[in-house]
């Protein structure tokens, strides 16, 4: 079931034909650290697209209605709201600097006119309410139009304030702040299908919260050893099952995944299922454990599968089969012969994310040189595409890219040694229903759409 490694088959038949749609962000070569995008997430309808950056800011884009008369406007995403979610902090008690970088954003399902999302940095999770205001009251009794209080003794008549339309204003306000529950650095948050609770996971613990309650959190997984000298693995990602509110999974730095059932006990230290691919002991090397560390785990929309991303591959697991994955897709196998250099420059520790499309028929993940990879699970075809300003003419088709590993480099191929390891695509998102993808390339956000759309 292994997918072809590194190859790029031209799109055809049922395959997608991806085209450039938009790019957001500055063009300058000098990228400020704060502008580096650290998370990208579509909401449940796909109408809103949120990004978080290292500077602690959140920018939300909204898809424009398509029936605006412009034939070519295929629902572009424009800025809807932006706010400072987290600020840098210093924990004086522990001499610990707390970065404002937004690690994850997760949307809540929409229940009324307002939109809610959870955003988290290393230590604190916040629930933000994003609401629209398009009416303003005029004719107050106790204050003037400019806000100055009127002298109550001068008021001789009462009037009823009138609601008048105003320019749309989108306001973001923090409704809940969930703090002080994590000793280590938060790597994941996941909203439960019950829409009332959510989990937050750090390197050693997973906590369960109720969205309404900020002063209490239940610890449901704790892998901290009594003696820290015995520490052998950390939690790298965690997620709730999309339909079963009692099921969650968490991945580890050793390449294993544990599925827990919250009905079995209050503390889920004992897993219900343990997923691990057997390893050939003779092929083990210094790098084996590092490259097996799972950087992301995502359930499929239908809840039957989950996908894990390790350094060189993406694996699809059937939840009913713990012994091995049902699919393994090579992302950039050519890097296996570069592991020494990648260890020296720390790139081997890069945490790539992965995502499913709405129908679970395709998966996507990022790579280096601003390349990203897509795997079609039905046709078994894969393609390598590039997010670059050079291919940014409106509706221009993206040309498949190919990395050359051997000696002879064909025209249009790029050799492994020419790859730019500073240009990494760690965060990508796929619209929940349509063929629209968002790809974060350092400080730029690219949006691509399928031509057939």
């Amino acid at each position: 079931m292994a997918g072809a490694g590194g190859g790029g088959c031209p799109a055809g038949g049922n395959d997608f034909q991806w085209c450039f749609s938009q790019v957001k962000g500055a063009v300058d070569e000098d990228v400020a650290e704060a502008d580096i995008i650290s998370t990208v997430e579509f909401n449940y309808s796909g109408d809103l697209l949120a990004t978080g950056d290292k500077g602690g800011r959140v920018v939300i884009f909204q898809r424009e209605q398509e029936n605006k008369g412009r034939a070519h406007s295929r629902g572009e995403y424009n800025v809807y709201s932006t706010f400072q979610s987290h600020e840098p902090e210093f924990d004086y008690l522990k001499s610990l600097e707390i970065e404002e970088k937004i690690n994850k954003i997760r949307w809540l399902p929409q229940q009324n006119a307002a939109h809610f999302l959870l955003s988290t940095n290393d230590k604190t999770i916040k629930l933000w309410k994003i609401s629209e205001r398009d009416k303003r009251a005029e004719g107050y009794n106790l204050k003037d139009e400019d806000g100055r209080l009127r002298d109550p003794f001068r008021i001789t008549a009462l009037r009823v304030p009138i609601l008048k339309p105003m320019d749309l204003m989108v306001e973001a306000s923090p409704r809940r702040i969930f703090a002080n529950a994590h000793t280590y650095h938060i790597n994941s948050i996941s909203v439960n299908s019950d829409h009332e609770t959510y989990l937050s996971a750090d390197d050693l613990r997973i906590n369960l919260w109720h969205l309404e309650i900020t002063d209490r959190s239940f610890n449901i997984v704790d892998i901290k050893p009594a003696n820290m000298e015995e520490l052998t693995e950390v939690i790298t990602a965690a997620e709730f099952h999309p339909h079963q509110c009692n099921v969650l999974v968490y991945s580890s730095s050793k390449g294993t995944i544990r599925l827990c059932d919250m009905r079995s006990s209050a503390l889920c230290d004992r897993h219900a299922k343990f997923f691990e691919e057997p390893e050939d002991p003779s092929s083990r090397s210094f790098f084996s454990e590092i490259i097996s560390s799972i950087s992301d785990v995502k359930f499929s929309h239908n809840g039957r599968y989950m996908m894990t991303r390790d350094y060189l591959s993406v694996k699809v697991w059937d939840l009913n089969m713990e012994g091995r994955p049902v699919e393994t897709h090579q992302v950039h196998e050519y890097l296996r012969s570069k592991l020494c250099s990648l260890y020296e420059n720390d790139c081997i520790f890069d945490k790539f994310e992965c995502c499913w499309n709405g129908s679970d028929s395709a998966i996507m993940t990022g790579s280096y040189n601003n390349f990203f990879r897509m795997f079609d699970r039905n046709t078994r075809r894969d393609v390598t595409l590039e997010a670059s300003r050079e291919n940014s003419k409106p509706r221009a088709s993206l040309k498949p890219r190919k990395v050359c590993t051997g000696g002879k480099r064909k025209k249009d191929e790029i050799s492994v040694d020419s790859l730019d390891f500073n240009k990494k695509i760690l965060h990508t998102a796929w619209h929940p229903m349509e063929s629209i993808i968002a790809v974060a390339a350092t400080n730029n956000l690219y949006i691509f759409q399928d031509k057939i759309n």
Partner: protein
Amino acid sequence: MKCQKKKYRRRGDRRSTMSAEVPEAASAEEQKEMEDKVTSPEKAEEAKLKARYPHLGQKPGGSDFLRKRLQKGQKYFDSGDYNMAKAKMKNKQLPAAAPDKTEVTGDYIPTPQDLPQRKPSLVASKLAG
């Protein structure tokens, strides 16, 4: 490979002195290793790494590595030590840290200048521009 080193992941043992010795005549074990290099690119890379850093620990995923990861963000500054050292030195300057020193240990006393100022971002995101 063009990539900047990230300071919070730097490990002390990778900076240790490197042996300049050339491996002697291949023993049976080394012969097998050479065979492995042919069949496994990963093992070849491992051999390369070991040649560059012979003192590199055997267990990269072991507790030292993980504990470093858990300690991310740790900053050391003790105002008592700093002021005492300043008083002792009087007019002399405190020894400045080497420019690339990211972990502060030993005799060196951290100064307030070593702690990067963290201010909230007052500028709007360029994505919203």
